[in-house]
């Protein structure tokens, strides 16, 4: 079971949350200009990385607020959690300066 930290309530079990898929997917700035291919990208295509992934979670049985989590999709390690108005945190580089 994942232990996920809600930015408002702190660490809670995975079962308190619901998953919302990839984070930072912006609504198109000029929707009227999009062709079908670009709409398809926006609606149906998401990243599916093996490794760190920025994703949305909602604290359903707690404060009911949405936030973002950086999680490794191979080790399932929760690397960071942050509010929607915060940028995706930089990951410490292996071998680099921490």
């Amino acid at each position, binding site marked *: *079971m*994942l232990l996920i930290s809600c930015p408002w309530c702190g660490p809670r079990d*995975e*079962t308190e949350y*619901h*998953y919302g*898929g990839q984070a930072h997917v912006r609504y198109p700035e000029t929707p009227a200009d999009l062709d*079908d*291919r670009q*709409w*398809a*990208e926006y*609606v*149906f*295509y*998401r990243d*599916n*990385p*093996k490794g760190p*992934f920025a*994703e949305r979670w909602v604290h359903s049985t707690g404060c009911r607020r949405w936030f973002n989590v950086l*999680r490794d*999709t*191979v*080790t*399932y390690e929760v690397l960071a959690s942050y509010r929607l108005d915060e940028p995706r945190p930089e990951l410490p580089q292996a071998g680099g300066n921490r």
Partner: protein
Amino acid sequence: MSTEPLPEHPDFLWRNPEPRSSYDVVIVGAGGHGLATAYYLAKNHGITNVAVLEKGWLAGGNMARNTTIIRSNYLWDESAAIYEHALKLWERLPEELDYDFLFSQRGVLNLAHTLQDVREGTRRANANRLNGVDAEWLEPDEVAKVCPILNVSPRTRYPVLGATFQPRAGIAKHDHVAWALARRADELGVDLIQGCEVTGFLKDGDRVVGVETNLGRINAGRVGLAAAGHSSVLAERAGVRLPVQSYPLQALVSELHEPVHPTVVMSNHVHVYVSQAHKGELVMGAGVDSYNGYGQRGSFHVIEHQMAAAVELFPIFARAHVLRTWGGVVDVTPDASPIISTTPVENLYVNCGWGTGGFKGTPAAGWTFAHTIATGEPHPLNAPFALERFTTGALIDEHGAAAVAH
């Protein structure tokens, strides 16, 4: 319930050749789909200069992890056509491959627990019949006749309000299916190469001309991807983005029991599906984990949920012990239907997105993918399952009939 002995595991079913420097067709992934594709490339199209490259061992991916349910009771015409084609192929494959992989047509019940389930189920059974798929709607007392150990009492939390029943559905011994296909493909000249991971693609402009592997470069006239949970990771290396997300899906088996469970029972609403293997294990699956994952293991609370549902539906299972649990990585599309398609890269073809339900589709996936690779054009059965549908909007929404929560 079958009391036949299991087929022997023969020592040598295929050669283990060194890869040659060049093939007409390279298939990536020796799961059921890759093997079936190679088999039909050789058998239906006479293309035998083919290699199937597998990073692990043959059929060690989802092919070895699935709960082996085979059925064709999907809602839409496009799905009914391809899954029913698969079921018809299943019905003749044991003889054709001369290998008894214990395909057992013991039927499948898809339970309804809510009024909406009842409406969906009756609609689907009607749609199935219009498409020539055997299906009926059963009331709770009829459900109990098909599966007497099922609790159809109205006093459960989610009572059984009825079920669809497909008598021709069933299960098969998945490993043996793979070995049967591998043996025939090998006999027809296909090279099956294990321990060979594709790490990149050789391209000439917008055309693929080969693959990079841990065993070196292999040139290829055409390349077909059949990598299930890893399709998008692989396709990305060829510059193709796929609309799939990879999720962990898990299953478990109990210790051996006397034959008690005569059919296959699936429940979308309470998220469990159960059959009894030939040897006697209860084989159970649940829903996918809600989040992306490549860990080949699933969350414990999903198992808890599934076991609670199983015990309520089958009180007789209350004291059965779990022997083993495992997980696979499945690639799910936005409409819960597969993709068998050409790609924006010339001579690169993709078969993916079968999600939680691609075992049943194995022969049809191979049949249509082989056709697409051999001719460069989709077969009529897989034309609707092209990548373009996500741009045109002609989706084939099978979330209801896919039957696993995702």
